[in-house]
Every structure is written in C-alpha cells, then in structure tokens.
C-alpha cells in the first residue's frame, strides 16, 4: 500500500498534486519569475530605443553596435549571475543580479530589433513627415516609432519568452523563482528519480511564457489597427 502511494506520487503526472501540496511557495516563485521576466524587457526596450535610433541615425555606429550586443548575448547567464554582485559591489545573493543580467540580454536583443524596425519605415514616409513640418523628436514618436511597432513587438515576444527560460537558470543557484523547482527535483532524485517538481516547473514556465507572449500580442494588436485593416482588404 505504501509502495503504491509512493509510486503514484513520484509519477510525472503527480505534478498537480505537488503544486497543491506547496501552493503558497510555488505561487510565490511564479510571481518572482513573472516580474524577473517582464521588468528587464521593459528596461531593455527603454534602453534599446535611443540606442537603436543612434544605430539608424549614424550608419557607422550600426556594425559595431550589432557586434557588441551580439557578443553580450553570448555570455552564459550563469556567469553573469555570479559575476554581477562582486562587479557592482552588491550582496552576493541580492535578487537584483537577475534583472540586471536579463536587462543586458534584453537590451542586446532589442537594439537590433529597434534599429531594423526603424529602418523598415519607408523613406518617402519619413521625408514626407519632415517636409510637412514635423520636428525630429515629434517625427520619431508620432511617425517612425508607430510604424516600427510590428517589428519591435515581434522582438519583444522573443525577448520575453527567452527571459522566462533564462530566469529559471538563476533558480539553480538558489535565487527564488520557478527554477527552484528544478533544484528541488534534482535534490529529491538522489536515490531514485522524482519527477513531479521538474514537470511542474516546466508546465508553469511554459504557461507563463504563453501568457506573456499573448499579452505582447494583444498590445501589438491594440497599437496597430492599421495592419488588420490592410489584411482584411
């Protein structure tokens, strides 16, 4: 009887039971995971807008900027999580190292997206805006940026989903988020494999990624009614 129960609760399908058993902790980690995934994308976008604009405005800046951001993106996340606290003089276990590292990744990804999105705005449209008397800043925010929205939101979708996956890595060094579930699964599998926390971690990460992706998609839709009108022509 005891063996039966044991084997049932160690089945991968027991993940929901595992969630119910540790609901408060798991929901706390979900919340941590959510803000750790979202805030860096927002920060990254705010930094990428001026940088992407610079890369477009001064064409000599584009190649080096793309090389640098590409390189930054290849630094393993675990290395950044470990290196950021001593480099910035932070507490070794501050939760800030994750959003800082992810902001670097998001910025790197989005600089190219913003630059290419702005580059896709038709030249005639920019010239017409100038000729009608837009000043450069107003032209950027009211003509160029709105037209670049579809390209930028496509990049945001990639960035936000990538972040959900990278945040989990920080769980394995003991920082609170859904990654902790993998750490638990590993610890509980010392004698024999114990799957529920691992499956639960995967399911919650995937659901979170789907929901965040859907939110970006909805924002995109709300900002670009003009694209739907064209498709339904």
């Amino acid at each position, binding site marked *: 009887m005891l063996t039966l129960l044991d084997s049932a609760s160690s089945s991968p399908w027991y993940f929901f039971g595992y969630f119910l058993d540790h609901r408060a902790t798991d929901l706390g980690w979900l919340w941590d995971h959510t803000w750790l995934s979202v805030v860096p994308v927002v920060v990254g976008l705010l930094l990428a807008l001026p940088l992407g604009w610079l890369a477009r405005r001064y064409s000599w800046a584009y190649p080096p900027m793309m090389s640098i951001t590409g390189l930054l993106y290849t630094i393993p996340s675990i290395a950044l999580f470990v290196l950021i606290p001593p480099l910035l003089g932070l507490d070794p276990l501050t939760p800030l190292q994750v959003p800082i590292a992810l902001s670097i990744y998001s910025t790197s990804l989005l600089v190219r997206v913003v630059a290419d999105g702005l580059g896709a705005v038709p030249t*005639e449209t920019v*010239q*017409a805006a100038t*000729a*009608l*008397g837009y000043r450069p800043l107003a032209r950027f925010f009211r003509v160029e940026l709105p*037209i670049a929205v579809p390209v930028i939101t496509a990049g945001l979708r990639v960035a936000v989903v990538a972040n959900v996956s990278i945040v989990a890595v920080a769980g394995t060094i003991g920082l609170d988020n859904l990654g902790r579930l993998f750490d638990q699964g590993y610890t509980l599998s010392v004698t024999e494999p114990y799957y529920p926390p691992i499956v639960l971690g995967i399911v919650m990460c995937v659901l979170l990624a789907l929901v965040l992706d859907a939110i970006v998609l909805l924002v995109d839709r709300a900002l670009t009614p*003009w694209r739907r009108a064209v498709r339904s022509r």
Partner: protein
Amino acid sequence: MIRFDGATKRYPDGTVAVDELSLEAPSGQITVLVGPSGCGKTTSLRMINRMIEPTSGTIWLDDTDTASLPAHELRRQIGYVIQNAGLFPHRTIVDNVATVPLLLGEDKTKARARAMELIERVGLDPAFAKRYPAQLSGGQQQRVGVARALAADPPVMLMDEPFSAVDPVVREQLQEEFLRLQNDLGKTIVFVTHDIDEAIKLGDQVAVLRVGGKLAQLAAPADLLARPVDAFVAGFVGRDRGYRALGFTGAGTIDTHQEPSVAVGAAYPGHGAGIDGWILAVDADGKPQGWLPTGEEQRGDVVTDAMLYRGGTLAAQGGSLRAVLDACLSSPSGRGVVVDDSGRLVGSVTAREVLDLIEKRG
C-alpha cells in the same frame, strides 16, 4: 513667388548638385523643373523647404529669406507632394490629410472637417476617409497626397514627381484633375519631373536643367519647343517637338465638311451612303462611335458596335491643331472627326486641309 538667387549645393566630396541657380517661380503659376537624372532638379526643389540646405546663395519666399525661419515653420507653410505619396500607413486617410493643420495647433474637429472637404475636392469618395493608405490604389494614394499638401491652404506647393509611379491612364487623369484644381486654387507651384511631355503639359514655364545642376533654359512650353537654346535642350525636348508644338496652336475656325453618318442599330448602309467606302457611325445622341466600311454584301443587316473601327481620335471644336491633325492621321477614312463640347458630331476635315492651315500660319 519663389526666387532662387545663385543657389548652389556642393557636397563635401566636391560634387556639385546645383550650380548657381537663379530663377523665379511666379505667384499663381506652375514652374516645372525638368532634366535628366543628376541634373539637380529634386535637390533644387528640396532646397526651397530646406530639406537640403544650400551651400551658398539665397532662396526667397516672397520677401522672406527662407534661411531666416526655423525649418519646421517654413515647411508648414509649404505644401509638399512626393512620389509614391509617402502617406502615413498607420493613420487613416482623414488623419493623413489633417496632419499639417494639427501640427499648426488647429483643433481636431475643425482639422478633420477641412480634411473631409479636401478629400472630396481631389475626387475621392468620402467613404475612403476612415480607411488606411494600404487599402487604396496608387492613384488614390497620390490624390490623398495632394489633399494632404493642400490641407493648411499653403500659398506654395512643391511637387516631386508626384505622378510618375502610376500607370499612364491614371497619370493622365491625375494631370487633368491637377490642372483643373490649380485653375481654381492658383497656387505657386514648383513641379519636378523627368518627363518632358509632362513638363510641357503642366508648366506655365519650364526650366530645363542639365547634368551638374546648371539651368539650360527657362521658357514657356511653346517657346521651349519652338526655340531650344542649344543642342542639349533641343535633344532633351525630343524629336517630335514640331508636332508637339502644334498642341499650343489653336485650330481656330477651321472649316469642316458635312460628314454622312449612320446610327448604331440602323440598317447597314450601302456604298452610296458613305464617302470613299467609309461612313461614320454615331449613337442615339449623335456622338461619333467609330467608322464603318460601306458594303453591299451586308446591306440590310443591323449595324452593331462590334462592326466598328474605333482607331480614330476625336478633335474638339476650338481645340489644338495637334488634336485635329491627329484625328485625321488616326482615322481609317483619312477624315478627322470634329465634335462639339458635348461630344456630338460637327463635321470632318482632311489632313491636307490642316496642313494648308499650318502652312498659311507659318
């Protein structure tokens, strides 16, 4: 009035795009800048609203040195129409048209009302107002471009090859409507094109520029065709300039012959009914439809549209010698058909008679 006073554009690498250009675009008239690519026509146009800053020289807008105003303020007083229209894809047609009034701080309701007025004025269905540019054809977008340029009622309009990206039939339509609109509005217009035919058709005066940005000749279209100043201008205005120049000479009171006609739907005429084997077919209103070879075999059949030879052009009474001569040359019977203002048959003339008239004038 727009006046170029020794305006020059020299790039850092030494290329001279516009070289000491001095010319005046008079108020209420269309001045066309025309020339081969690399002649600096677009650069010259863009120096007016300072999208390109001249290296030296001055451009005057009436009594104002254009360099003395902030660029965006200058531009808001100057309408601008660009090739491919350059509409804002993310804004509806009415908001595209309302752009400049809104930039000038007019309130939204008023700006939109004015935009609706202009949308109709340029010949668009008001139902288009709520659509987005990509839902319109190229010709329709170009009309929106013109409406947008007119929205703040600027005294001056700059047009950069506005009709060159649409097909020839639509282009001709847009040109006709543009002339009609200008007739009502009397704007001071500088118009850039690489097409000499368009320049001659639209311009009150035409400035021919040569590669390197030098003004070759500034003249009224008829003078340009009649007296090109040098080989370059002569070559540029084209081989058939003698024929095209006839477009500027009215046919005046050219005598027409009575032309026998048969109505579509009537019995097929025999040889005796026409002249030299051809008879003109007209509709119920007396408007010419095409030519019909007379013949005994089909006599008594009903004349249908499908039987007609439609090659001949029609010349309007009081139109140009070019139109009358073309009507003769294109007619299968050799007789050019002249119609009145409502399109009804007046009579016919022969090419010989037109040529006699040209010789007498010459």
